[in-house]
């Protein structure tokens, strides 16, 4: 990156907790959030469980306003507020101290539950409440909800690159800063569980009726989840000017498109290898310098084998001392938010040395088995971490965070 970019705050709402701190403690303790799904009827599905989040209270908003919010906004507003607060960017009224704050954000479904209700009414020829539903399902409405709840405006970009969107949104924020178009950006992603998406993955037989077992030979599919996660990126100079303490540096970002198939990665993982090489090159580090990778690891039969093979090639047969885990076994796959929440977990691993364990392993994929994080692992000398995401349409993205930039 041509300008030094630092992370000065972050926040998250996940199925493991209503804020980042609670989520992290539960994650490191080896908890998961798998539970029967009761947000909508799943009678006709193969799978009936997911990782859903408890909605944090929104004390600053009137009850009427809260009722109008999409579930996605109920997740996004508190996560964004926590990020701004931890960066020291909230005033006493809980509003952003930066009135113009660029916002680079990811989602795949926005307020889809409103869209689903709209379709139900239209098909039933019930013309009541149609406008309130159709006007609130679009993703820009959740962006507007966050902007208005936290009192900021400015450029926003909503990136919808499927499951890599969150990493892309963060990478785009870094790009905006790197070229001098912004000094400080709020970035991340949000996703709420909805029937359309849940049934979609279910009909593809991508969801598991068993435990979610990333990087296991007996893996049978993914666990769907929901989350919102945001971080504040700014230049070192901007952070220094306002007295903010950098938590780490964002040093590398790579993204590309895999043309092999709409829903399957190229068998040799070439696109994933390319984005990891781009990111490490930008960070000016060698692969072996990466201490921890928060892997995409969906636990689908196709993804994890390709991903393990890609790491083998990238690291030169073996990851060496690099540790790897997929946190999707604990919080589920949060789609558009996945890249953001997983980046936060990688950052916290960098900051604390505690590594998120790989849950539900029975028989690890041999190529990656030595690298998978066991229970209660601590590594205090990690200097760089990477977060990797792949998505439908062939989106691949990798982010690198570092204690300090390489010379």
């Amino acid at each position, binding site marked *: 990156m041509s300008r030094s970019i630092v992370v000065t705050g972050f926040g998250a709402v996940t199925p493991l907790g209503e804020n980042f701190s609670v989520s992290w403690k539960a994650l490191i303790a080896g908890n998961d959030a798998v539970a029967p799904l009761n947000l909508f009827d*799943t*009678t*006709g599905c193969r799978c009936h469980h997911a990782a859903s989040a408890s909605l944090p209270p929104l004390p600053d908003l009137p009850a009427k306003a809260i009722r109008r919010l999409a579930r996605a906004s109920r997740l996004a507003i508190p996560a964004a507020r926590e990020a701004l607060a931890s960066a020291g960017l909230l005033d006493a009224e809980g509003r952003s101290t930066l009135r*113009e704050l*660029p916002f680079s954000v990811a989602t*795949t479904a*926005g307020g889809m539950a409103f*869209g*689903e209700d*709209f*379709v139900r009414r*239209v*098909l039933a*020829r019930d*013309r009541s409440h*149609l*406008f309130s539903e*159709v*006007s609130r399902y*679009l*993703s*820009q*409405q959740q*962006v*507007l909800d966050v*902007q*208005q709840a936290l009192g900021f*405006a400015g*450029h*926003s*970009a*909503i*990136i*919808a*690159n*499927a499951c890599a969107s969150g990493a892309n949104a963060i990478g*785009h924020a870094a*790009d*905006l800063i*790197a*070229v001098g*178009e912004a000094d400080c950006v709020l970035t991340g992603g949000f996703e709420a569980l909805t*029937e*359309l998406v849940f*049934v*979609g*993955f*279910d*009909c*593809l037989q991508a969801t598991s009726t068993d435990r979610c077992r990333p990087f296991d030979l007996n893996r049978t599919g993914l666990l769907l989840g929901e989350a919102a996660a945001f971080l504040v990126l700014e230049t070192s100079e901007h952070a220094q000017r306002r007295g903010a303490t950098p938590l780490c540096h964002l040093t590398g970002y790579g*993204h*590309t*498109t895999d*043309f092999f198939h*709409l829903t399957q990665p190229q068998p040799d993982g070439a696109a994933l290898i390319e984005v990891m090489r781009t990111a490490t090159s930008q960070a000016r580090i060698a692969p072996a310098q990466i201490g921890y990778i928060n892997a995409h690891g969906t636990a689908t039969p196709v993804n994890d084998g390709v991903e393990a093979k890609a790491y083998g090639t990238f690291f030169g047969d073996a990851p060496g001392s690099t540790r790897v885990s997929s946190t999707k076994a604990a919080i589920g796959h949060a789609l558009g938010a996945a890249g953001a929440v997983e980046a936060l977990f990688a950052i916290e691993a960098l900051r604390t040395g505690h590594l998120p364990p790989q849950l539900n392993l029975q028989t690890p994929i041999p190529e990656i088995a030595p690298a998978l994080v066991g229970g209660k692992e601590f590594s205090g000398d990690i200097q760089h971490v990477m977060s990797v995401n792949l*998505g*439908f*349409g*062939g*989106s691949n993205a990798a982010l690198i965070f570092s204690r300090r930039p390489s010379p």
Partner: protein
Amino acid sequence: MKIDLAVIGQGAVSPAGVGVEPLRHREPFPASVSAISQPDQPWPVLRVDLKNPAFARWQNEPRLRRVSSMTFFLVEAAEQALAGVSSAVRAETGLIVAFSAGCTTYSLRFFGSIVTQGQKTASPALFPETVFNSPVSHAASILGLNGAAYAVIGDETAWVAALKAASVWLQRERVRQVLVLGAEEFDPIVLDAYRSARWLRRNNPSNGFLASEGAAGILVRRSGPEDVRMITTARDGLIYRTKKEAAAAAERLLGESDPALPCYRSAQRNWIGSLEKKTTENRSSVPIKEQPYLGEAFTASAAWHTLRALAALTPQLPRLLLPVWGLNHQFGLLELETRK
């Protein structure tokens, strides 16, 4: 945000026809479609003619076997903009597509079957095509665009966000050039949405807001001495929730720009059109012959207007403003310039 985008290729698909020329010269032929919740009351709409021979070359593409009409609009407009670009250069070309509604047809078909026939009937062939970036992936694959790809979503101003992202990629030297497109498709359910928003008018409907569809795009690179048409400014982020906030945002948007610059008017046939008229009444307008109304297709409309405005640039009109009026989030603005 000052940007430096030289426009080196253009492509369009609209109800007026396939290509950029019909955007300015050909009247679209209105069709008539009923909303789903009111099947006995048709509304005039503007549709792309998928029987146009231009689409035949895409209909045999294996990767496009299951796609909806929007992907055909997208790849056709993209190929026009890429005309003459070698495969080697395509391999270093990025792709950014702005959408508002995405693949409405398949989303409705997929979820409609769940509602009417149950979850067990959900189609695994349809679901992947409902994802926003699937058409982007198809287009990149078919056209050999090996650079990065983003799907950017939002109201009309997603077009501005897409252009800004292109500018950032070029400055970062992530790609050699970027193809930026907007694309939307019509489905009868949008009439239910527009009706509920009171944008459709029963009295004299053909002079009112018309739902439309299509795609358009531009191929851009950092400008050099040989380039003729440029986009030099992209502003967005003037957000609103209420009409009062919208009026204030519009005043601010135009107030920040050079008052001497003529303003291109996109004249939406809804409350935004009235707001645009009021906000720009003290400015000179771009002196162009009245052009056919192509209906409202969100990001595609924003792209159509950009192509029309680029065509209006002359030595006598070297710079102009193009406001981009987002229907449900924010307003933006582009400044266009010709250097010859």
